């Protein structure tokens, strides 16, 4: 029986090659696109799932309020928080502190391995998280000071590792960057998986920072707020109930309100949500965007839905052709359920073929897609455990089965319900119901299409807006060089830094050079107790700060609104002797000065010290346009490890870089010259937005293409049905234009209804998306007009492909064939 079904199905497909091609091609494209998107979705959802304790792991989020305003929403907090939580609450099974150690140089004998990213962390980290140990101590690797755990890749860089035996390197001594002491490798772990929030090459025992570096506050302190905490709750603990207890915990321990007048709120965020649902500042890990992930998932469903709608539409539209077969099968004894099974088998065959072709498409497009999402993905990612278990994997299988069933069932139902005798006597007319459903489905397809087109426009416009928005500073042609590490830190560094900058200025092709703690795109530090000397002594403000060298404003083309830039006498190796600051306009407003001019010469308190305002700069965007501009203090502080910003001319870039490198190497021998261009790193902040924009455009394009394939099929069918009518009309004097209009107007009506439905939905969704940006475009009406017009044009072009051919055909032929 099945063989008979499949045989008929196959021969039917073969007989109607064009329709079959449209159906299978549309479904293949849909499935291919869907499988690619779902790889990414599932990959993003799989973050941190590899940790056995993942469901019970949390990180501490610290919200800080000042003057009833949220001033900091971050994952950094005080070193005491983790330990205090463990002491106070029996629900806490374990805790681990993390202090990021940045990029370190690992020194082993004569070898220097640059840029290994490192964390200081407690020994408990290794048992709380699941980073499998390849060699060494599995229990107490980070117990003692001056012990480190490194990844296999790092081990291979340091040592000449043979095969997979890492045991010989346990106990070896290395030096980390400027350490005067040796650290012992106590364990080597497998490389951190790509889907880990925390990324590191090396873990240094937390005791090292306390004892060897003498940073006592890192142990148990409620003042310095530079620490990340991970908490393991006992299984079965309700974390919402636990969070509710943290208000009292904050009251009990925190003294910040005494120090800076700020109110602290702590809460736990599940580790499994950290990657996708992080809107926190001072993010330690590798974050994605839930908006992008869910948005793409919806697009994937749209695409496959559109493809299945094509199948339903084309199958039911062609039902008249299949009607005779149905009639014969009925009179020879087929029951309706047998016929339904037959058409389901056919749908299954078509979907199976489409799936195979789709998989080939995925295989071919995988490289391009991986470049787009910047991850090494593959089909295997469809079956990874994700947030909510295997929901995506199971969902995928269920969706495909349900899709096959529904797309097959409706045509099966329609076809199998024919009255056989009517059909066999040639009196069959397709029902109005089927036509209505087809209309509704076409409207649905095009509504989705219009939403996707509008979405692409708006996302593209917003990204363009962000790229072109005046930042208040010019980041073009700025190369940023990592500051030297291997230099003695003594009081001579001011002179040395100035001399270096002055020498750089001599290089032809170099406009300006400056040093700073942070460059645009970096998260600056915050002071929580800033106030004007003349303002209310009880009102504190939170202000960002940066330490800059004299030519920083010039290097970045920043606009001075009042006062002056720093001069060399503003700088001093002793922090206590520093006195002058430059504020941004936002800070002037925050601190209550009437105007930039009025602020010049006035005093502020900042970090327990009194400073005088010597200059005011116009506001500038230190971070992406997702964030609002914050009040900022620029201090005349030089630090030899500061990043070096170098503004160069666009000509002879290679030579300029080479000259800078020579100068750097002669000034700071033994240091690694490592640079990047600032516009690239700054725009890195928009990587999720850009991915969203590109994915929207590309997969929106797919959706449109598939919808058009369906429309092409339907219009061909409609044209075939009306061949005789077209002939009669032409004989009676209708022009080609008349005929094309006749054939197009029904479809265009549907597209217009689709536009009317799509516009409010698109507006709502995009409006919500834009709210994520502190600075965003307004959605103008013409975007909808353009998207609508485009949809009409695309539909018209698709239909006219058939209708012009039909209209231009010789009417005698069509009339004679009757």
């Amino acid at each position: 029986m099945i063989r008979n079904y499949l045989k008929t199905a196959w021969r039917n497909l073969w007989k109607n090659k064009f329709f079959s091609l449209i159906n299978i091609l549309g479904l293949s494209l849909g499935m291919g696109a869907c499988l690619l998107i779902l790889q990414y979705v599932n990959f993003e959802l799989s973050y941190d799932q590899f940790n056995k304790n993942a469901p019970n792991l949390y990180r501490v989020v610290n919200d800080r309020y000042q003057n009833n305003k949220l001033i900091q929403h971050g994952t950094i907090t005080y070193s005491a928080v983790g330990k205090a939580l463990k002491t106070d609450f029996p629900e806490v099974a374990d805790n681990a502190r993390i202090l990021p150690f940045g990029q370190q140089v690992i020194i082993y004998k004569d070898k220097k391995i640059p840029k290994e990213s490192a964390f200081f962390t407690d020994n408990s980290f290794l048992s709380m998280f699941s980073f499998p140990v390849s060699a060494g101590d599995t229990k107490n690797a980070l117990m003692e000071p001056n012990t480190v755990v490194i990844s296999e890749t790092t081990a291979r860089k340091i040592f000449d590792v043979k095969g997979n035996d890492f045991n010989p390197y346990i106990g070896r001594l290395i030096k980390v960057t400027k350490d005067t002491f040796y650290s012992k490798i106590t364990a080597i772990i497998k490389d951190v998986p790509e889907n880990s929030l925390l990324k590191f090459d090396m873990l240094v025992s937390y005791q090292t920072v306390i004892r060897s570096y003498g940073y006592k506050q890192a142990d148990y302190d409620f003042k310095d707020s530079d620490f990340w905490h991970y908490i393991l709750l006992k299984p079965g603990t309700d974390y919402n109930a636990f969070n509710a207890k943290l208000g009292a915990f904050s009251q009990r321990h925190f003294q910040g309100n005494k120090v800076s007048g700020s109110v602290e709120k702590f809460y736990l965020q599940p580790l499994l949500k950290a990657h996708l649902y992080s809107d926190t500042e001072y993010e330690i890990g590798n974050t994605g965007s839930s908006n992008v992930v869910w948005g793409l998932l919806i697009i994937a469903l749209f695409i496959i839905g559109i493809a299945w709608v094509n199948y339903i539409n084309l199958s039911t539209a062609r039902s008249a052709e299949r009607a005779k077969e149905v009639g014969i099968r009925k009179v020879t004894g087929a029951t309706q359920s047998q016929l339904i099974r037959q058409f389901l088998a056919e749908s299954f065959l078509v979907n199976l073929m489409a799936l195979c072709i789709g998989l080939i498409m995925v295989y071919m497009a995988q490289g391009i897609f991986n470049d787009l999402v910047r991850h090494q993905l593959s089909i295997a990612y469809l079956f990874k455990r994700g947030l909510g278990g295997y929901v995506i994997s199971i969902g995928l299988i269920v969706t495909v089965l349900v899709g096959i069933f529904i797309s097959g069932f409706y045509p099966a139902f329609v076809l199998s319900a024919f009255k056989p005798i009517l059909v066999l006597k040639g009196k069959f007319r397709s029902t109005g119901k089927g036509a209505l459903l087809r209309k509704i489905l076409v409207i649905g397809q095009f509504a989705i299409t219009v939403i996707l087109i509008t979405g692409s426009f708006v996302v593209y416009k917003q990204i363009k807006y962000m790229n072109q928005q005046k930042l208040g500073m010019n980041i073009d042609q700025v190369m940023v060089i990592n500051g030297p590490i291997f230099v003695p830190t003594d009081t001579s560094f001011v002179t040395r830094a100035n001399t270096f900058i002055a020498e750089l200025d001599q290089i032809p092709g170099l406009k300006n050079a400056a040093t700073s703690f942070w460059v645009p795109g970096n998260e600056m530090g915050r002071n929580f107790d800033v106030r004007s000397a003349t303002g209310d002594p009880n009102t504190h403000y939170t202000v960002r700060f940066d330490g800059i060298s004299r030519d920083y404003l010039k290097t970045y083309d920043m606009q001075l609104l009042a006062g002056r830039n720093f001069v060399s006498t503003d700088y001093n190796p002793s922090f206590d002797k520093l006195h002058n600051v430059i504020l941004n306009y936002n800070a002037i407003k925050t601190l209550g000065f009437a105007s930039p001019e009025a602020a010049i010469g006035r005093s502020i308190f900042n970090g327990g010290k009194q400073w005088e305002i010597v200059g005011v700069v116009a506001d500038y965007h230190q971070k992406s346009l997702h964030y609002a501009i914050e009040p900022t203090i620029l201090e005349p502080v030089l630090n030899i490890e500061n990043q070096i910003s170098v503004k160069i001319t666009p000509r002879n870039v290679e030579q300029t870089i080479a000259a800078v490198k020579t100068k750097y190497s002669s000034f700071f021998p033994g240091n690694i010259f490592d640079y990047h261009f600032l516009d690239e790193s700054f725009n890195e902040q928009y990587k999720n937005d850009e991915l969203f924009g590109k994915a929207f455009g590309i997969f929106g394009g797919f959706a449109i293409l598939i919808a058009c394939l369906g429309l092409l099929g339907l219009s061909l069918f409609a044209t075939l049905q009306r061949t005789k009518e077209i002939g009669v009309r032409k004989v009676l004097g209708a022009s080609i234009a008349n005929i094309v209009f006749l054939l197009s107007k029904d479809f265009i009506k549907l597209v217009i209804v689709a536009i009317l439905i799509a516009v409010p939905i698109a507006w709502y969704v995009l409006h919500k998306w834009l709210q994520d940006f502190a600075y965003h475009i307004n959605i103008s009406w013409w975007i909808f007009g353009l998207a609508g017009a485009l949809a009409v044009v695309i539909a018209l072009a698709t239909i006219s492909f058939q209708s012009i051919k039909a209209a231009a055909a010789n009417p005698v032929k069509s009339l004679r064939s009757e």
Partner: protein
Amino acid sequence: MIKITDLEKFYRTEEVETIALNKLSIHVNTGEFVAIMGPSGCGKSTLLNILGMLDDPDGGSYVFNGVEVAHFNERKRADLRKHNIGFVFQSFNLIDELTVFENVELPLIYTGVPSSERVKRVEEVLDKMQIMHRRNHYPQQLSGGQQQRVAIARAVVNKPKLILADEPTGNLDSSNGNDVMELLTDLNEQGTTIIMVTHSEHDARYSHRIIRLLDGQTVMENIMI
């Protein structure tokens, strides 16, 4: 074999109600060859549909082999149909995508005959219809007469007790038409009951009895001698 009493069938559209069968009563004995004649629209095809259990009546009784089937549901009707009734149509109605062999095999598939048995029975009937040499051809590769022979082969492969033929020679020239009528007569002589709708007095003469319909009612019955 067939006894219908006061059979009624209406067709309704939004505005008009048409009476297709008006309290029609007919009796057909096992082994009979009956022709039904009448002008277009007299209810011939409606009657054939109901007799073939492809449609249900709106009123009256239909007893088939002693069983009242007028109110059988689709599944029961299909079951009864596939074991007892074979159809032959004017326009042959073969499935274009299936070969001659596969078309004839179809009723056997639906009655669940095992594959080896199917091959045997299809070959047997194709042989009898003298189209064995065309077994792997598709319908469009055959002449009209050959197609109708395939259709008859399909109708009889399941050894039905009743064959319903709807103008079986309507699309054939007289020579092929006569061949088909001879085939039907043979089948009847071997015991199969045949009810045939026809416009052709010539074809009707092959039958034992002619029932003439007008406006859904019997107007005359001729017994052929």
